[in-house]
């Protein structure tokens, strides 16, 4: 435990020493805020037209603004995360390998698993710090809505984005452990993210192909979370994915011990 904490602490401190983390978080929040604005405005617009329609045609005027906004916004976040996570994760192992500090870690009395877990938790923490301020946006909107969404729904939505992000970070870290070059790791992770995105698009296809893609899609499982539904199968899916990536990362570290100087 103590080793785990030591690694975690060091990693987290590292993130905040370089300007990269601050820039990423800043840009992310600005972009997210910008889109939130658009989504909210468009939802309010739709609410007004529904209102007008109902006075004219007598149809019910219910347009769930908070629901629509939160679903759209959470959906947007997932797309942003898909493309931001390579940047967060690319240096996790690549930089250590390049500096030779990985040799320090691997000749110290700590297990490879402790290294992997410590680093993962630190990257997850950074990710949470990046994501959670957006909750202020949704939270405030919900607070001012009448009727508002049950808060539990927002909670679940964010649990989902954390799981999705965690999965992508675990994947990015794994890829980072394959190389000494951060950029290669970043580009590779980005490419894999694109594939994931494409797989997700493929689930709209007909028949078994659509089903298969849907089953595999990292993003689809997230949809339920946006609706405030906690599907245990989705939970298991994400946890398994994260576990698999971490397991492979441990193996990747082990394989470093067998390589020539």
């Amino acid at each position, binding site marked *: 435990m103590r080793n785990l904490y030591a690694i975690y602490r060091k990693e987290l401190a590292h993130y905040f020493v370089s300007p990269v983390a601050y820039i990423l978080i800043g840009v992310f929040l600005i972009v997210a805020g910008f889109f939130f604005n658009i989504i909210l405005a468009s939802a309010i617009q739709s609410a007004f037209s529904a209102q007008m329609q109902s006075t004219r045609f007598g149809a019910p005027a219910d347009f769930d603004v908070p629901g629509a906004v939160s679903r759209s916004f959470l959906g947007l976040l997932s797309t942003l995360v898909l493309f931001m996570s390579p940047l967060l994760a690319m240096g996790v192992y690549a930089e250590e390998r390049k500096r030779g500090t990985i040799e*320090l870690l*691997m000749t*110290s009395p700590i297990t490879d698993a402790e290294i992997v877990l410590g680093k993962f938790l630190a990257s997850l923490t950074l990710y949470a710090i990046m994501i959670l301020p957006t909750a202020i946006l949704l939270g405030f909107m919900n607070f001012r809505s009448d009727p508002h969404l049950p808060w539990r729904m927002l909670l679940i939505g964010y649990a989902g984005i954390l799981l999705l992000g965690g999965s992508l970070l675990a994947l990015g870290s794994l890829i980072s452990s394959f190389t000494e070059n951060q950029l290669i790791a970043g580009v590779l992770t980005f490419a894999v993210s694109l594939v994931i995105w494409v797989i997700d698009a493929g689930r709209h296809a007909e028949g078994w192909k659509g089903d298969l893609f849907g089953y595999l899609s990292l993003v689809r499982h997230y949809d339920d979370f946006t609706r405030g539904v906690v599907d245990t199968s989705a939970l298991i899916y994400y946890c398994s994915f994260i576990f698999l990536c971490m397991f492979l990362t441990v193996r990747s570290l082990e394989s470093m011990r067998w390589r020539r100087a």
Partner: protein
Amino acid sequence: MIEVQDLTKTFGERTAVDHISFAVNKGEILGFLGPNGAGKTTTMRMLTSFMPATSGTARVAGFDVFDNSLEVRRHIGYLPENPPVYPDMTVESYLDFVARIKGVPAEKRAQSVTDALEKTNITDKRDELIKRLSRGYKQRVGLAQALVHDPDVIILDEPTVGLDPKQIIEVRHLIKNLAGNHTIVLSTHILPEVSMTCDRVVIINKGKIAAVDTPQNLTSQLKGGQRIRVEVKASEQALREQLAQIPGASRVQTEPAPVNGHVLATIEASEGKDIRSAIAAKIVEKGWPLFELKGVNLSLEDIFLELTTDDAAHAQQAGKSE
């Protein structure tokens, strides 16, 4: 403290370490001497439990490096060729981190860090960012990290490379002071370093051990008979022929001297014979001006070259003057 038996490491077809065996006693300083690519770093990586061996065993502090990897790592401080430092950390926070992952208990950590800083003489840099330190200081931080948990065994891979002469002396002093309390293995290709700091030397070449002994023993063992060097104004060919005729001279080597027209000759005598006067007499007899005549001791450098130079090239050179 360290026992190595038949240790072997192959990378595909290449054998980096070839069935080496040696032991290091508690408190001893063992030098690992060898040309680049001899297998020094690979051996150290196996001792520190970083890399598993292909075959053979190694035990450190009684623990097998493969079966009890974590235990071994607890007892070893390791400084690789490039100090494994994090540039964005301060010296103190770096050493604190290393102390943590090496298992130093919380209550002892601060003191251990301070001690390590003092021993390596970098206390005044404790709040400095590592990336701002010069190479020499970075190396010392690397050394400090190998000491911070007060390990039984300290393994240093080329600890003085890149340091200025003053720092080199300091590091050597430090190493010598550490012996006794710690067992030290250091690798180097700087020969004087070995004779100055090490109790025993392992000469390794192409993955195999060429010799294991104290520096003094090695020097005297291979000294064999007397060696005389002369500087004479003569033709190289003629000088060589004449010197070879002296009774007791077993080998003659000549080469042109820096000064134009002069020749340097090294004459090896067979065991027990003093041929200095015979040499002087012969030179005078021939009427050649004699500029220098002195006895030469076989230095560790010569031994090193002798043991690690290809046999073919060596024989060729020997044959040239026979």
